[in-house]
């Protein structure tokens, strides 16, 4: 049986097409469909229910020391209200999960993890905990709504005081109010656009959703489902656990070396994590130059030699071409390398390109497209 998020009834009201995902019933899309939802986030704003994400509180005198040992990033120089992204590795350097740590105050951190990994992560953290540090799973009572897109700030400003809205990427304000509802506001997201993630008590989530929808009417805010969330993150080349990384792929291979601090003292997986120069395989972008869409878990070839596999792939609605991410033998990762990917019995040609495919502010393809999606 799938669980419902606190916004389940709201999704039905907005005609969300509900599907099982990470143990929850969530909308894959609403009436307008994945492409229009995707374009709304790139050009205006979109609203997502991400209440399925897991939240774990880490408290105690040794909280920081525990994080330093559990996670690959360095949290020693964090200020209150700051957020930091980090992989969490197993002993062999494979990835247990990727997550975001918020420093709420001295000795108190909020850790946001992937829904599908929540129970595994929580067990892993408790198993390795030491000293005075307590891990508490608060996912059940926490709802999360993501407001994403170039108009996100304008919309949120109608509901929250200026000093309740964080001013910088990867910063958060705790114990603030939006639409009169107690919440935490974080300037983060998974779309490649500016935006916020708003955390609140589950019972307040429907009211927050409606308040945001009402506030965003003028700006063209629409609800968006998991489909658009996936195409948006793929265009922005943001890795997804279970695709670009898992227990057998280390975060340096995924391209997350910036969040792996090999110079800090011992942490789980350190001995097996190579510096960039020692990598044997790594994540790249593939742009389809032939005809077809490359999906995940397809083999990649150069001159009939297998050089790796794809991890995600789809048609990119904003860029207008199909693209994929792949983990390839480093000898073949030079930009411009021509590869072939057999898809359902056909050879699809592609080329290694730099990541991300899409960067905020990239202008759209043509006048026709602008007209089609109502962009001025």
């Amino acid at each position: 049986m799938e669980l419902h998020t606190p916004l389940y009834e709201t999704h039905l009201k907005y005609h969300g097409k509900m599907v099982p995902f990470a143990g929850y019933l969530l909308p894959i899309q609403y009436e307008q469909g994945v492409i229009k939802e995707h374009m709304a986030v790139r050009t205006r704003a979109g609203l997502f229910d991400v209440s399925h994400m897991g939240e774990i509180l880490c408290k105690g005198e040794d909280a920081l020391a525990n994080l330093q040992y559990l996670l690959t990033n360095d949290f020693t120089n964090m200020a209150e209200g700051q957020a930091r992204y980090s992989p969490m590795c197993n002993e062999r350097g494979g990835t247990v999960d990727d997550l975001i740590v918020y420093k709420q105050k001295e000795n108190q951190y909020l850790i946001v993890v992937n829904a599908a990994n929540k129970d595994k992560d929580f067990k892993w953290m408790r198993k390795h905990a030491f000293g005075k540090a307590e891990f508490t799973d608060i996912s059940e009572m926490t709802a999360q709504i993501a407001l994403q897109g170039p108009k996100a700030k304008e919309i949120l400003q109608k509901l929250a005081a200026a000093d309740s809205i964080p001013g910088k990427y990867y910063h958060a304000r705790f114990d603030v109010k939006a639409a009169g509802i107690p919440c935490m506001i974080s300037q983060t997201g998974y779309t490649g656009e500016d935006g916020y993630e708003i955390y609140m008590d589950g019972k307040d989530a429907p009211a927050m959703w409606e308040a945001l929808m009402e506030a965003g009417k003028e700006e063209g805010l629409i609800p968006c489902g998991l489909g658009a969330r996936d195409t948006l993150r793929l265009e922005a080349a943001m890795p997804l656990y279970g695709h670009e990384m898992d227990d057998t792929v280390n975060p340096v291979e995924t391209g997350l070396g910036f969040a792996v601090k090999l110079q800090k003292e011992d942490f789980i997986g350190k001995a097996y994590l190579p510096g960039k120069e020692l990598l044997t395989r790594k994540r790249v972008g593939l742009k389809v130059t032939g005809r077809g869409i490359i999906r995940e878990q397809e083999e990649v070839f150069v001159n009939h030699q297998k050089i790796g596999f794809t991890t995600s792939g789809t048609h990119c609605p904003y860029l207008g071409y199909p693209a994929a991410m792949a983990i390839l033998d480093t000898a073949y990762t030079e930009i411009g390398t021509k590869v072939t990917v057999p898809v359902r019995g056909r050879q699809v040609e592609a080329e290694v390109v730099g990541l991300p495919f899409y960067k905020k502010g990239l202008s759209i393809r043509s006048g026709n497209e602008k007209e089609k999606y109502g962009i001025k």
Partner: protein
Amino acid sequence: MQVLEDLFYTKSHEWIKFEDEKTALVGLTDYAQKELGELVFVNLPEEGEETKAGASFADVESVKAVSDVYCPLTGVVGTINEELLDAPELINESPYAAWFVKIEDITDKVELLSAEEYEEYVQKETEE
């Protein structure tokens, strides 16, 4: 859901429009395109290829998934609708105008439904 009176239908949601006994156009129904969502890619067979009634002969892709399209007729692919290759969204916009292929030299077919039968069939399927 739109169903046209003068077409035949299959349980796998293709429509067939006979030009004569040996020649027919094949496409995807309105119900099918709605279920699949916005299509972004279509892969058609080659002209001259032989088709077998009930076998997959084309596929359509949305941003999320790829789905097979089955050929209801045994015959030969006479013409493909090349327009669809560049504009798969035509299938969503007007499914009964967006034919995939013209099949010629038809020698066999799967069980075909009338418009009325197809409508009943879809209703039953969605109720389940």
